[in-house]
């Protein structure tokens, strides 16, 4: 496990509603925990934006400053599948086909549970968890944002 993977893990955690994530790989175990309350002190200068100017408004940093930790209140317990892209949510592969999953259905890790269409591309969204669908949080055909919870899966 290298620094990049850990950073990815932090970024992933931020994109979800979870409080923590733990990964085990061989004999290495990494646990990333979301802080409940951000400290009020300014971020260390090292990870702050250098005066970048209008030519490049952002700085391409992945700085996890004290302010970017927003904790989306998970409406209920359970694991949430969040949309990785902006697009339109579809429950079935085609209008005349049955839905991938219904509430209550068991799902396996890696199983396709829905589609988010962007730019005419049908992006199949796989469940990252094994369990049972306890809620489908978006209506068929609705637009979804990045990071928007789509489904709740309970073990």
């Amino acid at each position, binding site marked *: 496990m290298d620094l990049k993977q850990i950073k990815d893990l932090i970024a992933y955690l*931020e994109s979800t509603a979870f409080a923590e994530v733990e990964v085990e790989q061989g004999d290495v175990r990494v646990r990333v925990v979301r802080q409940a309350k951000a400290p009020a002190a300014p971020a260390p200068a090292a990870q702050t934006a250098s005066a970048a100017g209008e030519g490049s408004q*952002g700085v391409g940093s992945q700085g996890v400053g004290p302010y970017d930790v927003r904790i989306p209140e998970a409406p209920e317990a359970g694991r949430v599948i969040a949309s990785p892209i*902006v697009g339109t949510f579809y429950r079935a592969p085609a209008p005349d086909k049955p839905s991938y999953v219904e509430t209550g259905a068991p799902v396996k890790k890696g199983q396709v549970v829905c589609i988010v269409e962007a730019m005419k591309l049908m992006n199949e969204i796989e469940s990252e968890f094994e369990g049972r669908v306890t809620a489908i949080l978006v209506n068929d055909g609705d637009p979804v944002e990045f990071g928007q919870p789509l489904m709740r899966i309970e073990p």
Partner: protein
Amino acid sequence: MFTKILVANRGEIAIRVIRACKELGIRTVAICSEIDRDALHVLFADERVVVGPADNALSYRNILNIVSAAAVTGAEAIHPGYGFLAENARFAEICESCGIKFIGPHHTTIAKMGDKATAKAIMAAAGVPVIPGSQGILPDDDEQVVKTGDQVGFPLMVKASAGGGGRGMRVVHGPEQLLDAVNAARKESAAAFGSDAVYMERYFPDARHVEVQVIADHHGNVVHLGERDCSVQRRNQKLIEESPSPALSKTIRARMTEASLTAARSVGYRNAGTVEFLLAPNKAFYFIEMNTRIQVEHPVTEMVTGLDLIREQIRVAAGERLSFTQRDVHFRGHAIECRINAEDPKTFMPSPGIIAWYHPPGGPGVRVDSAAYTNYAVPPQYDSMVAKVIVHADTRDEAIARMTRALEEIVLDGIKTSVPLHLEILEDPVFRRGKYTTRYLEDFLARKRGREAAGDRPPRKAAKRPPARSAAKGG
């Protein structure tokens, strides 16, 4: 006209675009990263779409998610603001292929002007003066290099073709230093960029940066809106801009604005753009580059012309004719803009944090473009500019007095800002005389350090400010 526009930006420029849309009766879609859900541009827009995480490469520069956001919200056009995707030809091209109007020039124009060598060649061919230099890369032939050096003239600068950030650059004051400098620049460039290709350009140590605003519609009308002097800058970061430039005579202004119109016409330019010039001490001017976007300092031009540039950008993109001709454009008074950054005024280190109390200045002739509010957390991920203060008055002296007054009123508690630095510059005799070049700020800071080392008290007392509000401390 459009009925809905997606604003592909954040901060004050996103708000500026939303304001123009509201006045035109156009609905707006804001995009934001996950940490910007409470940002002011999001709150001002009719709809919002989160397009990615804090990292702007995955959010504000995420072409796929932004175009998808326009598609799912039914926006017919995208305004890119400045920075991020504003000068990304591929983004403009994708918008076009998806049937979404990109509010800016055609993507082929963006691509041409984005390549410095191509832009320079086009301008030279059109008769716009360009900085004298070698025709492309210097040959590996000492005799030829010496000959080229004599043609270009001294002082000159040897620059790495692949370069940037000052590496592979050498200033040469006379022919006897030339070959050593070329060899050194080659070595440095090879080490830094993997290429020893270098070229030369005439070097102007005491030049000013003066730019001309142009705007063109799809019906062949091209109009200039006068110049802006942006010579007060630090490491190519502009701090103060003003119009008119204190350095231009009527004759030079006429020639420079005419050259700008030629530049715009030579590339079939559409929408708003800026032609940047280097103005030498002998008042000769040379094309530097063309910015194919709206610029941070556009309000300076709006103040002296009374026009709304963003509104005009939107109208032109919708296929309408410019609402004015060159004859209709009248310049009145003097405008100055100060960019207020969240940074230490002494060390220039960024100072993100929570603005515990925000109070913008007001009164006659003062305009503030900002996305700040009390208890807003300036995120460390993005640009450090927190506000633009723009003033307008009849004369330059009155504008300076008005800006000083405005900056004494502004309150941005909780973070360090460049306000104290601006106040010192506004008091500086060199600035007041208008006799500054792009090296001005460096000199100013050196003089200031000298004064401080000599134990002199700073010339300015701390600005008076309203009494602290205890409730502002909390969350």
